[in-house]
């Protein structure tokens, strides 16, 4: 039988994989430096938690939570459609601050700093091994879906817009609409990952959806290499497992948290300096 802790790590890898490939769609393929990804993850997690705490069935809650997240992606895309580069990064970052402030302060609805506890998990997923299988089924479906749409006309178009928006527009392509769709689909899968996270952990609070959590997700996409989905899979495994040796060195858990963050931040700095294209990246971060 597989060790319980190992199962936990595998589930995290599955959830981060969905987050990574969905960010790959907006950041890699779309070239949109979207720092609001963590907010969509949070919106999905909270929407799922609130729906299932109010008695909605599991599958419906996941679907609706992902759609709510996608709707926010659409809303964010309306004002940000014409922005690019670091300016877009700042607005999307601002969006994630607004979402965080609302999660933290709308106490009657989101539970505020105490978060939401006892999020129900359906009986067929009550043990972690079956949850693991469930996460991987979803992760594989998400992977196939995203790699398929990146291969279609839509994928080619969004890459063309990333490389030269003016040229794409002069060929009569509806660039704004395509970029919106990129963000919407990306937000949908981030929301899906958030739902899985909430139902797995069964407790969420706003602190899981801050800048600190954004670092490993960015790291996954950059280490994997922009526009490389197989690279993202490899990077997810590396990023989730890399702090694990810390646990075996006998540090206390209050030390492991900050050490892990330091490790991720340093790794991100080293990667963008020495190997900015990661494992299999084809383009640079603009």
């Amino acid at each position, binding site marked *: 039988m597989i060790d319980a802790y190992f199962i936990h790590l595998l589930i995290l890898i599955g959830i981060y994989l969905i987050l990574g490939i969905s960010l790959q769609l907006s950041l890699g393929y779309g070239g949109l430096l979207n720092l609001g990804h963590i907010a969509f993850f949070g919106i999905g997690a909270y929407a799922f938690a609130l729906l299932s705490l109010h008695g909605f069935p599991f599958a419906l809650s996941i679907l609706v939570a992902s759609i709510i997240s996608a709707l926010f992606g659409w809303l964010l895309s309306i004002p940000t459609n014409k922005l690019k*580069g*670091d300016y877009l990064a*700042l607005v999307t970052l601002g969006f994630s601050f607004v979402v965080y402030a609302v999660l*933290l302060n709308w*106490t009657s609805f989101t539970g505020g700093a105490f978060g939401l506890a006892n999020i129900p998990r359906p009986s067929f997923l009550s043990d972690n091994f079956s949850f693991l299988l469930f996460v991987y089924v979803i992760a594989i479906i998400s992977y196939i879906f995203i790699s398929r749409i990146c291969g279609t006309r839509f994928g080619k178009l969004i890459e063309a817009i990333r490389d030269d928006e003016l040229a794409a527009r002069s060929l009569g392509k509806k660039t704004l609409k395509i970029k919106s769709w990129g963000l919407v689909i990306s937000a949908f899968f981030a929301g899906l990952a958030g739902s899985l996270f909430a139902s797995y952990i069964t407790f969420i609070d706003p602190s899981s959806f801050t*800048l600190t959590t954004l670092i490993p997700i960015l790291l996954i996409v950059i280490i994997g290499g922009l526009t490389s989905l197989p690279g993202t899979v490899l990077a997810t495994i590396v990023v989730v497992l890399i702090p694990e040796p810390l646990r075996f060195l006998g540090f206390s858990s209050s030390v492991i948290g900050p050490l892990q963050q330091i490790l991720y931040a340093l790794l991100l700095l080293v990667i963008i300096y020495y190997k900015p294209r990661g494992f299999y990246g084809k383009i640079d*971060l603009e």
Partner: protein
Amino acid sequence: MDIFLQLLINGLVVGSIYALVASGFSLIYSTNKFVHFAHGGVIVLSSYFLYWVSAILGWDFYVASFLTILFATLLGYCLNKTFYQPLRAKKASNSVLLVASVAILILFQSLALLLFGADVKTIALPLSNHSINIGGAFITPLQIIIILVSLLLFFALRLLMQRTKIGKAMRAVADNKEVAEILGISAERIYGTSFAIGSAIAGIAAILVSLEQNITPLMGTSLIIKGFTGSVIGGIGSVPGAIVGSLFLGLAENFGTWFVSAGFKDAIAFILLFLFLLIKPQGLFGNKNNQK
């Protein structure tokens, strides 16, 4: 009327704290032209440095304050030399520098958390013990000092940018880097100088914030977000604008509590940030050339 006066005072005090953060940040932005979020990280490490020297080593507070400003200056200068300059040399885009600065912010906060733990630290000075009553509203001597320091910075930085040789060189690089370099101004040196001056102001901010509020590892993020918001409102890249924008932000947050519950102060700030970025990206006082 009492409530109005108290909100006005609270708004000015909070706005002045934001202004302390925003002025250094904005000074660095004006020449370097990228968003240095790690400015918040410099403030966190400087605050803990002050705590370490004055509370743990037990040195005189004023000596410790002086050392803190020195520490912040060096930290900012080295940060530029070790992280940003090599990235610039590789022609990294502004987006890459932004990602690097977020990573450095998280790095510094985690370092503070690792070294000093998550519990709140305080530095006590008699300055904040008694309040002065002004027409029914209360203000502490420390808060008066905070407002005065931010006003002083407003004039000092204006003077620095307009009148001194280094200030003129900084404006030249900010305006047109290539032409400035042809005229013999080393852009890298100006970048280094603005990091040093901006971070020295971060040191001053760290001292006053440590006295007025508590020291926590996560204060860096919240301070830089507010300082950044103040700079955007005032016109990013304009140092006096950043100070006025920050005061505006402090007042807007506090008077906003008349309409929504106090917990939503942060939401007010972020919504302002969001609106300014989208609708008026050049801010209240920024010139059009600074906008992207």
